Structure formats: C-alpha cells, structure tokens
C-alpha cells in the first residue's frame, strides 16, 4: 500500500462511518483487507484498492469500510459491567417500567455476542417485577457481521471467551463443533444495519444503549455528534454503556458515570441512589 492508498482509506473511513483509520498501523489494515480482497477475487490488496479507485462502486466502497471497522467482541466482555447491569440496572428499570417494555440496544453489535449477553443477563436478572418485558435490538455497520449475529452460531473458541460454562449449557445447543444460541433467546432480538452517523432521532426511546469500543475508534470531530444523538434517545432514567477504556470526555458533558467505574453512564444523577 502506498501513502496515497492509506490516505484514500482514511478518507473513506472518515466520510462513510466516522471511523479513524489507523494509518500508522498498516499491518492491521492489511490483515483486515486481505480476506476481503480474496473474497472479492483480487490477487492482492493493491489490486483491490486499484479497483476501488477505478470503479468507484458503492458496494465495494462499503465492503472496504466495513472491513476497516471490523472489531473483536466476546460474550460478557467486561464481566463486572454485565454483573452490574444484571443485578442493579435491569431490576431497577423493571420496578419503574412495570408493564412497559425495557428496550435495550447494542449499537455496534458486531457478531452479536454483546446483545445475546444482554438477553442472557436479563433472563438471569434477580428480583424482576412479574411481567417485565424486554426488547433487544442489535445494529452494526457490517451486513456480514449482522448475518452471523442473526444466525447465532458460534465456534467452540468463541463460546469459551467470556461465557461461563453454566450459561453455555443453559442457553446454547451443541451442533458438532459449533454452538447455537437457543431459539428462545435468538427470537428476542431484532437486527438492523445502522450507520451511527445517520439521523437516529426516529429510532425511538431506549432504556439501555451499549456503545462499546466505538467512540475510541471514531474520528475526534464526530464523537460528540454520535454521543449526543444516542444520549438523546435515553429517557431520564436510561443508561449508556461504554467500554471502561473508552475516552469518555464527550459523554462526561452529557451524562453522569454510575458508581463502580464500569463504563455505565446515567442520564439523571437523581436516580444514582436507585441504581447503586
């Protein structure tokens, strides 16, 4: 890849997805583009980028942007964060919502582990009001990731990263060397391809939004916009969940961190006591 190629990739990532392409890490970019080049029938990454320049084909541009955005995920990533959601946040919401559904959105769900972890956490949450209903939504920029998420089929390696063995036995079915999430959990989730740079105001209200490992990889000039548009969807007692390592400076102006330092942010400080 030439410096001009890197500039092109950086410009596409920023314009299409708000993503900061790490041009200082060419090996990382190559490892993400190599499988795409193979899949699309090009001999090399250079050939893929050549086609990108000459054809200017929307489908190929998006395939490249999605490959650049691909992120690693595991079940229950940040175990303590999920424990706090399960044991404190969800029961508190259940008591306040009563019959109204609790709506949970994994806003960059990748291959689905995060939203399924939330669905399992909700099924395991203690002390919910009888009749509590949950609605789960998973969205991502990548159609390929969403297809895998929706299938809910994981390798033996994937189910051994973060998923306690008792949860595996309880919520998955073994099929040879793969594990499928049980239909009961899978059917609770709805999926959609969503670019977080788009207008999100028609998405409706969400009580819990997970936006993990996203802001840190975004172009600095767009982080605030995304943080604001998601925070605007939270009701007064809603929560936004970031990665503990995420730089949260944009969020700090909008929301208040929940006690525990586990990346959970509250819209209204007055309900801190209830969530603690």
């Amino acid at each position, binding site marked *: 890849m030439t410096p001009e190629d890197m500039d092109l990739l950086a410009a596409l990532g920023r314009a299409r997805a708000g993503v900061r392409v790490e041009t200082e890490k060419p090996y990382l970019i190559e490892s993400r583009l190599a499988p795409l080049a193979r899949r699309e029938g090009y001999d090399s990454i250079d050939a893929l980028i050549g086609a990108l320049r000459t054809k200017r084909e929307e489908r190929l541009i998006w395939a490249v942007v999605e490959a650049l955005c691909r992120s690693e995920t595991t079940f229950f990533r940040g175990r303590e964060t999920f424990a706090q959601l399960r044991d404190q946040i969800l029961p508190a919401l259940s008591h306040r919502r009563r019959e109204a559904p609790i709506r949970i959105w994994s806003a960059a769900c990748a291959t689905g582990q995060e939203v399924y972890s939330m669905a399992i956490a909700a099924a395991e949450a203690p002390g919910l009001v009888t009749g509590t209903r949950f609605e789960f939504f998973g969205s991502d920029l990548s159609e390929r990731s969403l297809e895998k998420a929706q299938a809910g089929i994981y390798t*033996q390696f994937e189910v051994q990263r973060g998923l306690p063995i008792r949860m*595996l036995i309880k919520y998955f079915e073994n099929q040879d060397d793969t594990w499928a999430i049980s239909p009961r959990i899978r059917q609770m989730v709805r999926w959609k391809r969503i670019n977080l740079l788009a207008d999100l105001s028609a998405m409706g209200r969400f009580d819990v939004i997970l936006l993990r490992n996203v802001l840190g990889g975004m172009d600095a000039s767009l982080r605030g916009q995304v943080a604001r548009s998601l925070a605007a969807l939270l009701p007064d007692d809603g929560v936004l969940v970031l990665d503990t390592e995420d730089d949260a400076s944009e969020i700090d102006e909008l929301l208040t961190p929940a006690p525990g330092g586990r990346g959970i942010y509250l819209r209204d400080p007055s309900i801190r006591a209830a969530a603690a």
Partner: protein
Amino acid sequence: MKTCLVVDDSRVIRKVARRVLEDIGFEIAEAADGMEALAWCRAAMPDAVLLDWNMPVMNGIEFLRQLRAEPGGMTPKVVFCTVENSPDHIRTALDAGADEYIMKPFDGDIIEAKFAEAGLL
C-alpha cells in the same frame, strides 16, 4: 502464590498448560492420572486443578468425585480441560463439582478467561 495441579496424561498438554498458568501467576504441580493427582492433593491441597477427563488408571471424573469427598477437598477450584464437548459430559462434570470447563483445543486466552470465571484470578 496460588498453586495449580495440572492433571493430564499428555506431557505436551501439561507443558503448554504449565507455561500459560505460570504466566498468570500460578505455581504448578503435575500429575499424569487421577490416582497420582489424589496423592498430590492428600499431601498438599492446591488452590486449583486443571483436569483432563480421559486418562489411564483413574479418569478425571472419578478423581473429581473422590477429591470432593476428601477432607478439604471442596476447597480447590476444578477446571476440566478435555476433548469431551457434549452437553451431557459438561453436566456430569458440573454435577460432580467442577467449577468451569474447557473444551480442547484451547489457547492461553481461554485458560485465562475460564480461570477468571472460576474466581481464581
């Protein structure tokens, strides 16, 4: 320093597991079957046991049942590490008192994740 007894009839697996576990701060003892492992536990109860299922002399599940009946035998966290990956095997292991369960093949990340799940890290 926490101690972990690695029980597997494969010397190669014991060596790989030892390297991973030493890196996350465990002192390692090794046993090649369940009988040898029981002898270790009677001499000095470890904090953790990484346990294969299929071994000569005494297999992993028999070892686990006997361990849990020993004085002090409820203390160690036991993590199975086996090619057996059927839900029936996993349920049998949990019923016998296993804390976590690794399906081979494994890597260092999986051992670390499972030991964290078992409350060992």
